[in-house]
């Protein structure tokens, strides 16, 4: 008989799974105010989860017969994901109440999605990769359609589901090709096989990696597998969009990093070309397509496509420096996006949510603090120093230059110049245009306003104490290259 596997490395996931199921029971059997109670309990569970993650083993630990791995890299990424999830639940409270979608399944689904994302980050086998990915995706499909009484939300969920299934199919096809040509699904075994000459030369394996990358690129909405993003972002309820913009992106990118660096690290010269192409395409399309958007959620969708492009530069570099750049990028991206969506959640007029960019006109007059915060986020996303958004861009560009990808860096910088246009257009609207009818000054509620304030301060002052984050990211990036 086989011994019971070591459960300690997977403790956070186990805890969260149990917590999610317990909360579901609470939700089912409690009579009144269930969703509020379940939401706050879910936040509590995520906080405990965060603590457990950070108390886990620092050294690389593999369990469940090589299916699950954890190290500093996983700890870093999971922490970001958990923070993103928790803040999303908090921010969704008031929106859900006002839009009559205040159901206790919402936080539960976010918890399940979070478990899936954590499983993705810790995947050390193509099977566990796929299971984590599907757990996450399925929860997200439901969340996208959560406002089931509106056509757009349902449409968003359906589109996401159909295209997600297609991408899953491709990913599975890639995985089966890889299994067929390498004889294993385990990352460590794959790395071992590929370190030999015979493994490297196999074209089938490379095509398998291509299909796998396509599936992953879909999940982090890189061009040309991004098409779902604007529609889903626009259609999904705003708190869900905010959640989509942060946590799943982080999970998908960390999975991308792990898959490319760990099992296929020896194929770096092969996959570098794919990443190069989709990174550039994402940056360019993100920058150009965003310009003619009028809906702020669509704008954020293209913005996130562009940001994924920049983050992928770090992966294209294929070095520890590049990975570190991606990690810092994701950390800063998380904070910027939470901040921006907290402001978008505050966009209400006479009690109704509004989503047009032009609704922000003259915000600096009616709500100067909110406008200032959004201006900070926009400038930071555009990468204007000394705001936080500048630092990771700088790191990934430097990594690209050091890796010899000078053209990618140059084109990336050009794309970010184009990107500046639409970010700064928002600022211009708020500060220089004649005000539309003023937005409700108290919309969003205290929790959301608090998120806005905290994220704005972090973005503003990050440049003063970047050390801890940079050092942690460096150690975490190094841990990925040990295995």
């Amino acid at each position, binding site marked *: 008989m086989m011994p019971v596997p070591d459960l300690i490395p997977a403790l956070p996931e186990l805890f969260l*799974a149990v917590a999610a199921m317990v909360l579901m029971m609470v939700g089912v059997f409690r009579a009144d105010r269930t969703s509020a109670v379940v939401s706050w309990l879910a936040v509590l569970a995520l906080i405990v989860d965060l603590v457990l993650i950070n108390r886990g083993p620092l050294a690389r630990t593999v369990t469940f*017969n090589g299916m699950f791995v954890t190290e500093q890299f996983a700890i870093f990424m999971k922490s970001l994901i958990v923070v993103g999830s928790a803040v999303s639940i908090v921010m969704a409270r008031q929106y859900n109440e006002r839009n009559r979608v205040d159901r206790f399944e919402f936080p539960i689904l976010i918890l399940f999605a979070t478990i899936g994302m954590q499983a993705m980050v810790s995947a050390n086998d193509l099977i566990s990769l796929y299971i984590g990915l599907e757990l996450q995706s399925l929860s997200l499909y439901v969340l996208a359609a959560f406002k089931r009484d509106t056509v757009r939300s349902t449409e968003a969920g359906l589109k996401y589901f159909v295209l997600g299934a297609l991408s899953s199919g491709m990913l599975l096809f890639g995985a089966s090709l890889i299994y*067929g040509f390498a004889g294993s699904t385990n990352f460590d075994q794959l790395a071992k096989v590929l370190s030999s000459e*015979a493994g490297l030369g196999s074209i089938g394996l490379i095509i398998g990696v291509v299909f796998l990358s396509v599936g992953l690129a879909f999940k982090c909405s890189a061009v040309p597998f991004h098409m779902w993003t604007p529609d889903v972002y626009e259609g999904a309820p705003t708190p869900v969009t905010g959640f989509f913009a942060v946590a799943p992106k982080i999970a998908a990118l960390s999975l991308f990093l792990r898959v490319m660096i760990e099992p296929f690290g020896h194929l770096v010269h092969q996959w570098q070309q794919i990443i190069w192409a989709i990174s550039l395409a994402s940056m360019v399309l993100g920058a150009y397509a965003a310009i003619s958007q009028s809906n702020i959620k669509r704008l954020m969708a293209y913005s996130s496509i562009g940001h994924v492009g920049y983050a992928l530069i770090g992966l294209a570099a294929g070095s520890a420096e590049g990975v570190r750049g991606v990690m810092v990028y994701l950390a800063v991206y998380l904070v910027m996006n939470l901040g921006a969506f907290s402001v978008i959640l505050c966009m209400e007029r006479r009690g109704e949510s509004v989503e047009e960019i032009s609704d922000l006109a003259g915000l600096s007059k009616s709500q100067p603090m909110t406008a200032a915060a959004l201006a900070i986020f926009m400038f930071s996303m555009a990468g204007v120093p000394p705001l936080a958004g500048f630092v990771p861009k700088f790191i990934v560009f430097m990594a690209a230059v050091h890796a010899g990808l000078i053209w990618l860096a140059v084109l990336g910088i050009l794309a970010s110049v184009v990107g500046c246009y639409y970010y700064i257009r928002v600022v211009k609207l708020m500060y220089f245009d004649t005000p539309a009818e003023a937005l409700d000054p108290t919309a969003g509620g205290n929790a959301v306003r608090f998120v806005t304030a905290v994220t704005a301060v972090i973005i503003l002052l990050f440049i003063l104490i970047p050390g801890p984050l940079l050092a942690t990211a460096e150690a975490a990036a190094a841990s990925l290259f040990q295995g």
Partner: protein
Amino acid sequence: MILSALAFYLFAGIAVLSGLMVITARNPVHSVLFLILAFFNAAGLFVLLGAEFLAMILVVVYVGAVAVLFLFVVMMLDINFAALRRGIRQHLALGLAVGIVLLAELVIVVGAWAVAPEVAAHTAPIVNSAVTATNTQALGAILYTRYIYAFEGSGLILLVAMIGAIVLTHRARAGVRRQVISKQISRSRAETIEVVKVPTGHGI
């Protein structure tokens, strides 16, 4: 050996053909029926490989549940498939071109399949077939030990699927009479039956 080869080509050929029919059939009900045929052939392929448990599961789950569900859905929803197919002609050429090129490339790739000697070491069976007699036993032995993580993870996925289905479709309708068994059971005679004295010969 010749017999098994013949059987393989039979099953495989019918599977591919019926797959083709699934997407080309005009009547959606026919499509589903061809799908079922494809499932049966796939099950036959499993049997040829000696995986009789998987073959049975495929028939039970896919044919017995999934495909029949599809059939119900197709028949209950009045979808105008002709309208859906209207645009197909203008996209047909391009779609075919892309499909054929992709297929050709994949054939090239798979055609170059060769297992490296290092790889062969990993492909050895995980479970010693001499120890466990049946398929079912062998699967059971590894499912809850070696693949416990994947198994439990799949369980979570199914749970989410269930929650999702309920969240998206369940509504509490007003004015629907439900059977509440505890209420039925706990009814006392007093609230159900009223004994009325009826004078004889008068009626109620």
